[in-house]
């Protein structure tokens, strides 16, 4: 999604480079010097210096007075704080996902669809996490993940078409007919199970989250190693995950589940 749509020639070079500098930062490495940045991004040192100075003046970077190198600044925290506030779902899902992780002992995610990708809003790790291809804010191809497939399964036909068309290289091992059959099946059963499609030995079980209009806007997934998931009964896990997803939907104002339960009780 990065490159398509917009014409790259219209991009503003200094803005693009400034963001590339910010994105350079990753957990194992928290500080960079000017020369390192210039080297890593292949931008001239004077340009890097000018951009870094500007980013510092606005609080996006800060200089460590001891090492003279730069780390991410509090303005970033401000923006990410806004993201968590604007996404209502981020807030209302936390109190549901935490207990789910405690109970099941596996890692849980909350993700939303962005074009043909999913983006993780929450990753809540269990006590014995396995290394997964996910982190908060990261994108993965929707068609390769349990949570992506379960969100997709409920999208309108044109959207599915769009994602399949755009995901070309990601589903080369499957035909369009196979993908469609899989999504149909997921929608019919109300959850997805994906085995080892992104990481070997890893299973992901996903369920849909609906907003107050009943539209599927997100998904949750519980992910863990095949042997641990097998030990718990799949049916048990699926029940728990669907229930958690329904609870988040309710927090967002979707009441069908409640109405259904009430009518079941009455009968």
């Amino acid at each position, binding site marked *: 999604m990065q490159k398509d749509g917009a014409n790259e020639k219209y*991009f503003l070079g*200094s803005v693009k480079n400034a963001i590339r500098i910010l994105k350079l930062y990753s*957990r194992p490495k928290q500080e960079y010097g000017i020369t390192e940045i210039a080297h890593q991004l292949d931008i001239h040192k004077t340009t890097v210096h000018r951009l870094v100075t500007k980013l510092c003046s*606005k609080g996006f970077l800060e200089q460590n007075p001891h090492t003279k190198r730069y780390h991410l600044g509090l303005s970033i925290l401000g923006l990410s*704080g806004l993201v968590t506030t*604007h996404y209502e779902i981020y*807030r209302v899902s936390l109190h549901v996902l935490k207990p789910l992780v405690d109970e099941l002992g596996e890692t849980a995610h909350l993700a939303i669809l962005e074009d043909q990708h999913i983006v993780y809003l929450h990753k809540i790790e269990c006590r014995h996490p396995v290394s997964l291809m996910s982190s908060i*804010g990261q994108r993965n191809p929707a068609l390769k993940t349990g949570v992506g497939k379960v969100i997709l399964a409920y999208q309108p036909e044109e959207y599915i078409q769009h994602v399949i068309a755009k995901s070309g290289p990601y589903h080369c091992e499957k035909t369009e007919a196979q993908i469609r059959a899989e999504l149909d099946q997921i929608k019919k059963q109300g959850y997805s199970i994906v085995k080892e499609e992104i990481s070997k030995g890893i299973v992901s079980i996903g369920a849909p989250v609906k907003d107050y209009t009943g539209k599927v806007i997100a998904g949750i997934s519980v992910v863990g190693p095949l042997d641990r998931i097998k030990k718990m009964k799949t049916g048990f896990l699926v029940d728990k995950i669907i229930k958690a997803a329904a609870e988040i939907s309710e927090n967002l104002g979707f009441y069908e589940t409640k109405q259904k339960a009430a009518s079941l009780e009455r009968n």
Partner: protein
Amino acid sequence: MAKTKNKSNSLDNALKLLDLFSMDVSELGVTEIANKLGIAKSTAHRLLITLESEGFVMKNRETSRYHLGVPLLALGNLVSSRLKILEVGRPIIRQLVEKTGESAHIAILKNGEVFYLCKEDCKHPVEMLTHIGRKNPPHCTSAGKVIFAYKPKDFIENYIKEHGLHPYTPYTITHPEEFLRVLKQIKQQGYAISKEELHEGITSIAAPITVNQQVAASVSIVGSIKRIHPTNYHSLTKSVIQAADQISHKLKTL
């Protein structure tokens, strides 16, 4: 806005554009942005597609307006993982939320504003008043007042000169002398209470966190006056002070 479209101007504008988003403004359109920044619509559009290409903003397909992008969450997480005060403080304020039943924060003073570094929500579906990275005026929040209380007098006087004591509710302290007197009292008692000084119906209680023998941050709880009530000020204050002291102590022994 200057006519010259030099390079630093576009980065300036991009950063200003990001700054237009706030708790109340989650989506912005091209024309709106152009007007607010005083730039041409075509320039605003170029800024947006550049920011979008890196995921800093996202276009809402239905409204054709832009909102902040989720990749910012990943960067925000990197900042919080760097800050020792959060590493130490987060589990402690989580306990504080469990104990008091109210939302809790860790905040610092930055450029004359209270800046919330971390927030733990309580289970009440409350008033969304604060969020991480939110900035509030210090003179009418307990989180700000308690940090102010330990600053030298000229620091406070400078603040008043620069920002004034703007009234947000009928209960905001607006007289400099009274403000200084209140700060003195806060320092004596070691905590601050701000009852409806920023939002009507909301009270907060804060205590100072000390780093290198200086008050550098604060712990606060915020909630409805119905729950944070004079009858339970004592026990709530005790819990807030305890949490702040615990954080100060842990930071010292790191």
